[in-house]
């Protein structure tokens, strides 16, 4: 038992050492095929991915399917869904379908951008803290813990109220710079455990700089994990953006799903019984976020055989 363990251990360091010297040669083709095989067999991943893809396509193609623009008035008021107005019209006479597809676009844009910003900050803080250790790590984790405890939404409400956000980009950046802490924490823990492995020591001995080791050795070894973190940040950002828009703190010139809900509430869609006004935006948000979450679990099972259903 013991000798076998040692043997596999030396093999794995051996291959790692090879990959250091013969950098980026021979991509692991067989394992990629294997990953794809498990990916398509994983029901969660397939369901999540199809839901997200469906709404993504709708967000891209949707605006071409209708002549109406989201803020345009002059349609019949409070009309239920019909062949002409697929999702009906709002009480003041706007086309719900147009608002919905443009809103979907905003959700994807803000979610992706905010996810990127948060992932970038989280990765920087996590890698530096986990790899460098010492005082730098200590300072960074105090910073992380402080930002972690402060409720994101509270900060966003007060900042957005003063700034009066007028673009999706500004909204995304705001969300991104407040929602990174848990990602930083998770990435730090992973980096920390990777940094003590033999192949990192080998890389260090071969004289590579810290940044190179992080970029070429550590990050690729946890790329699947980083991707999962990004997906969760994406989904979380979509929800936070919807909440901000609902509070009337998002850009008022850009239609979003949260703004639709805001309009529905202030336009008394409930009292008027106009369910078609507030159902679509919520379906959109829930489907995107839920699809991403389920996709995340599916991917996790694909990457990590231990979690696969037995």
């Amino acid at each position: 038992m013991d000798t076998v363990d040692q043997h596999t251990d030396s093999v794995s360091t051996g291959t790692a050492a090879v990959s250091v010297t013969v950098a980026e040669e021979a991509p692991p083709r067989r394992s990629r095929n294997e990953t794809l095989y498990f990916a398509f067999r994983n029901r969660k991943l397939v369901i999540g991915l199809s839901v997200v893809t469906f709404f993504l396509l709708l967000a891209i193609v949707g605006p071409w399917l209708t002549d109406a623009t989201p803020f345009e008035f002059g349609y019949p008021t409070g009309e239920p869904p019909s062949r002409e107005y697929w999702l009906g019209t709002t009480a003041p006479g706007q086309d719900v379908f147009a608002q919905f597809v443009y809103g979907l676009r905003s959700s994807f844009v803000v979610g992706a951008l905010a996810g990127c910003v948060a992932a970038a900050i989280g990765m920087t803080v996590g890698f530096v803290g986990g790899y460098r250790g010492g005082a730098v790590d200590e300072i960074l984790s105090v910073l992380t813990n402080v930002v972690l405890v402060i409720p994101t939404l509270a900060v966003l409400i007060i900042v957005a109220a003063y700034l009066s956000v007028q673009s999706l980009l500004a909204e995304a950046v705001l969300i991104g710079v407040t929602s990174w802490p848990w990602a930083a924490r998770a990435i730090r823990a992973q980096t920390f455990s990777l940094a003590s492995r033999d192949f990192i020591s080998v890389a260090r001995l071969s004289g590579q700089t810290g940044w190179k080791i992080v970029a070429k050795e550590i990050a690729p070894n946890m790329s699947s994990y980083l991707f999962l973190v990004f997906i969760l940040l994406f989904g979380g950002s979509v929800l936070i953006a919807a909440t901000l828009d609902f509070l009337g703190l998002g850009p008022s010139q850009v239609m979003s799903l949260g703004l639709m809900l805001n309009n529905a509430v202030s336009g008394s869609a409930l009292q008027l019984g106009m369910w078609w006004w507030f159902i679509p935006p919520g379906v959109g948000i829930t489907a995107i976020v839920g699809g991403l979450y389920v996709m995340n679990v599916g991917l996790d099972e694909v990457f990590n055989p231990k979690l696969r259903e037995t």
Partner: protein
Amino acid sequence: MSRYLLRKSAIYLLTFFVAVSIDFAIPRLMPGNPIDSLIGRLQADSTASQELHGFFTESFGLDEPLWKQYLTFWRGLFHGDLGPSIAYVGSSVTELIWTAIPYTLALLVPAIVLSYIAGNRVGAMAARRKTLDNTVLPVAYVLTAMPYMWLALILAYVLAFRLQIFPVSGAYDFSLQPAWTLEFARSFLAHWFLPFLTLFLVAFGGWAIGMRNLIIYELESEYTNYLQSLGAPSRLVRKYAYSNAVLPQMSGLALALGLVVGGALVTEIVFGYPGIGSLIITAIQVRDYFLLQGIFLFIILGVLIANFIVDIAYVIVDPRTRTGIQGS
């Protein structure tokens, strides 16, 4: 034990300090002057507005050096003075928040505690039980992905407007005055239920998923295999798995607090429930900055206190933190 709590308290104190500083800095750093927008809304003529500008600048102490303003800010804070409200003329921010907070807490505390307990139970039951897992899990995913305000809208539409089982808005019937009577209690509960249910359901989904995954993880571990090979009944094995899985869930509780609070705010808005959320939406609509800043501080303070309570509970549940052994 004391070292663990001391370290945590130090972080919370630092967080509070940072939060207060943010609260102080944001209005002063942001482009646009709140006083200008305040005067703009009063629609005074130019000479009067200049007078007003001087008056407001002086009365808010904005003409003093920054460090002095900062000290004054802290002093006001310790005296519970968060400034006057602009939206509700004649009331102070502290007063407004104190009247709103009981309603928000009445929603939040039961929703957090009950969803945590129920979610953990159901999640643990679903783990590694095929049929239960296949029914509970999809529902939990949909619930946790729902924006709070949307679930609130659906519940309000179906249960209050269509079926008329519950009242639609407010915290109690308008014909009643708050009092310790059975009639008032009944009206209060009826109004309370839907917002509570909204918060409960969304949070429940998250806990159930988390617990299910953790239990599966625990059931794969060495000690479970060992127990099973000894022929331990599966009830016992699950019991051990549960007490191990509760720990990460508990640290998750601290993380989730901020989200649930945000959920409570938007849920209150949908139901017109007179808590902090309704205050916020008014404050946003009339740009009542003092009120927003005060609410911000109260939310931070509340979340910090809640975090501290969770930490104490964690020390009680996890013996390792008591003896100073570092857990994994």
